[in-house]
């Protein structure tokens, strides 16, 4: 991989793209075998992997809008990377199709006979039914794509011919975009994840998924930027100070995630209403207890302590390890929320968990590098680029 110093375009990314695509396709093909061996397990593994990667996309989408709204200076050098992650939305829309195909294996509210014998599900049938589920998901993806495309196109247009109008457009799209985002990600979390147990409910659940999505996105942003750096690209542009700020975000949103998780846990534990407590009860059975404790120690305490000091945030090899750890924990968080609905006795890892994670992730990475290579990796004419390049943390 090389960088053309004049145009700021990446070249020779083919090898990387091919590798990612090959890994993705091969892993998906292997998983297809699993589909015939154990169909339900295939869909469970698929859903968890999918929820992980789509959370990365959505988190990046959030950061792009956040940067436009707050008029960030330091984040400008990172924007192309974040935009490339955001632009995986169409891919994620296509990859949602298997979830719809597996709806009867995943969501038991989708069975008419189950609903008919369950008075509570009957009440919810107006919301939890297959048609409306599909329509809603289509609406989410449609809205996300429209907003993201507008943001990306405007940002690219700025490279050629920058005007103040574009900066205003970016803000004007991002403001309502945030509202749409807040509502859609919450309902997507209810639909895709919370309704796996259709009797259980929690008002904070949308925020819970959102807080995890931010960690996922930050993790992938960091890894992509570090990969560029390891190829000697943008070394002077994305400085340690930028990593330091990203790491601060990682630290801050780890606490934010912990806050959401703890709020939900504390209130449900304290009130001890059976129809709510069942959620944590199921996730404390057998070996699930290990993952439950992992949430406290692995997902919160280790990054909390491990990203506290300035040196930790500025030591890039160390930060990389911590980032990978946080991404792993984010995956296990989703796994721990989703899978106990199917495996009630304890943790059941399947080889498909791995192949589908790599499968979706391979396609995901392939698309990111493709998008990054198609345009300059810096938003060259952004009015705040200069300030961003000189960003320094005293």
């Amino acid at each position, binding site marked *: 991989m090389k960088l053309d110093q004049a145009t700021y375009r990446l070249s020779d990314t083919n090898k990387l793209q091919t590798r990612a695509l090959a890994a993705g396709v091969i892993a998906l093909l292997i998983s297809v075998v699993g589909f015939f061996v154990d169909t339900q397990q295939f869909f469970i593994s698929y859903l968890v992997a999918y929820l992980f990667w789509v959370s990365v996309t959505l988190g990046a989408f959030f950061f792009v809008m956040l940067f436009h709204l707050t008029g960030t200076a330091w984040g400008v050098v990172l924007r192309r990377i974040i935009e490339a992650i955001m632009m995986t939305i169409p891919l994620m829309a296509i990859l949602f199709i298997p979830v719809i195909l597996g709806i009867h294996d995943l969501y038991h509210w989708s069975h008419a006979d189950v609903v008919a014998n369950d008075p509570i599900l009957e009440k919810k049938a107006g919301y939890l039914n297959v048609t409306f589920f599909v329509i809603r998901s289509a609406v989410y993806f449609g809205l996300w794509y429209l907003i993201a495309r507008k943001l990306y196109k405007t940002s690219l247009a700025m490279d050629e011919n920058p005007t103040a109008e574009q900066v205003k457009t970016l803000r004007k799209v991002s403001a309502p975009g945030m509202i749409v985002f807040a509502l859609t990600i919450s309902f997507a979390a209810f639909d895709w994840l919370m309704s796996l147990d259709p009797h259980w409910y929690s008002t904070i659940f949308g925020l819970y998924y959102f807080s995890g999505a931010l960690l996922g996105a930050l993790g992938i942003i960091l890894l992509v930027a570090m990969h560029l750096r390891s190829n000697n690209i943008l070394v002077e542009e994305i400085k340690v100070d930028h990593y330091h700020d990203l790491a601060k975000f990682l630290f801050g949103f780890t606490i934010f995630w912990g806050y959401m998780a703890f709020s939900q846990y504390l209130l449900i534990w304290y009130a001890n209403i059976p129809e709510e407590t069942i959620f944590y009860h199921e996730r404390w059975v057998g070996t699930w207890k290990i993952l439950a404790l992992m949430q406290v120690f692995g997902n919160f305490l280790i990054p909390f302590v491990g990203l506290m000091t300035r040196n930790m945030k500025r030591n890039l090899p160390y930060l990389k390890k911590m980032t990978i750890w946080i991404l792993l924990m984010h995956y296990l968080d989703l796994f721990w929320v989703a899978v106990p609905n199917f495996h009630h006795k304890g943790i059941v890892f399947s080889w498909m968990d791995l192949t589908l994670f790599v499968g979706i992730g391979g396609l995901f990475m392939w698309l990111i590098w493709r998008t990054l290579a198609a345009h300059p990796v810096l938003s060259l004419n952004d*009015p705040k680029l200069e300030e961003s390049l000189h960003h320094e943390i005293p």
Partner: protein
Amino acid sequence: MSVTVKNNSITPVLEEPPLITGNQTFASITEKISSITETKPGKGWALGFSIAAFLALILFGSIGFLFWEGVGIWGLNNPVSWGWAIVNFVFWVGIGHAGTLISAILFIFRQRWRTSINRFAEAMTIFAVICALIFPGIHVGRVWVAYFMFPIPNQMEMWPNFRSPLLWDVFAVGTYFSVSLMFWYTGLIPDLATLRDRAKSMLRKRVFGILSLGWRGGNKQWKHYELAYLLLAGLSTPLVLSVHSVVSTDFATSVIPGWHTTIFPPYFVAGAIFSGFAMVLTLAIIARKIFGLEHIITINHFEKMNKIMLLTGMMVGYAYGMEFFIAWYSGNDYETFTFLNRAFGPYAWAYWTMITCNVFIPQLFWFKKIRRSIPAMFVITIFINIGMWFERFVIVVSSLSRDFLPSSWDYYAPTIFDISLLVGSFGLFFTLFLLFIRYLPMIAMSEVKGVMPQADPHYYEKHD
């Protein structure tokens, strides 16, 4: 640097307006702000102070009567055992949050515009928390055993319930008060030294001399000061979230529909910041006008604050919506009933007041004209203050008044003493606030100077 920015033609369009206007110098800032505390205040201040002090006397009078007669003088009834006292407590604690957000979180986010408003926002925090602390204190009924709220070793081996959110409140609000006070005082030290150096009378010299703790403004002192400030900002940041989260658990750990819902902690925090900003803005608009601070607290500061209110107002709206949706989605009859009852039951008037003031009216801030119109924002902030008080009223009263047993349902109405305590608490708040702006620098002079163009070490090279 290898990148050359090709086109800078749009940079001027996006240039941020200067934070401080009117060609101020360091000297003019010092003069402007210090002189307020050094000269005799105008008639407006005296009138305001007499009204506020009168209302504060009403508060103390009402408290006295409450101790004499007991909590029976309130409008509490059988299902509604928490009334205005708790509403007022949550309201005042919430007001305080803007100060901490401005001084700590905006500091950490490198928002330099905070320097013009942080001092009196922090002062407001402290006074609001004082007002808040009165209410649970007088709510215990037997006020002479109020010390039972603290885990004090005693010969009866009586301990408070450590699992009770009411005890967590004591710790959370106590911590909040002490850290806020420390943060505020630390920030004041350089300015107190300025007042000391300007003092003409012996008394002022002595008082400010003691208060400024020997500040000389040396390099080392600044270095230590800034480190302490950063650490206190770091300590205050989690407090912005934790205090109102703990307050929300007073309700949310129960099993009462409308109280028990998992979104309560972040929802309360957003509401607290929302109401706090509204209060800061109300006060800032008045103070700016009376003392002629237009060059230091500019319309750009107000616009930024209005944006924060628009944002937090929508967060609160999100929480209202989520509660409603999940109440239906839960399929739980009690949940559904509670929310329909809020919107269409006997307290529908309060519910719709809340929705109108908190969700609909702040939407006007989408328009730049309104964000920059002082009369408009003044009116809107008053609406938000009203709306946020009603939010707590709706939560506390509507859920209690119709509980699980229809035979015990009752309608809660306040008595004259509920009203006098609320009005009186505003009196206390304004009394303290007016004393503050009379005797202490209401704007952080040293910090404002730090964001002026002259603070740039290369400023004079360019301007020679």
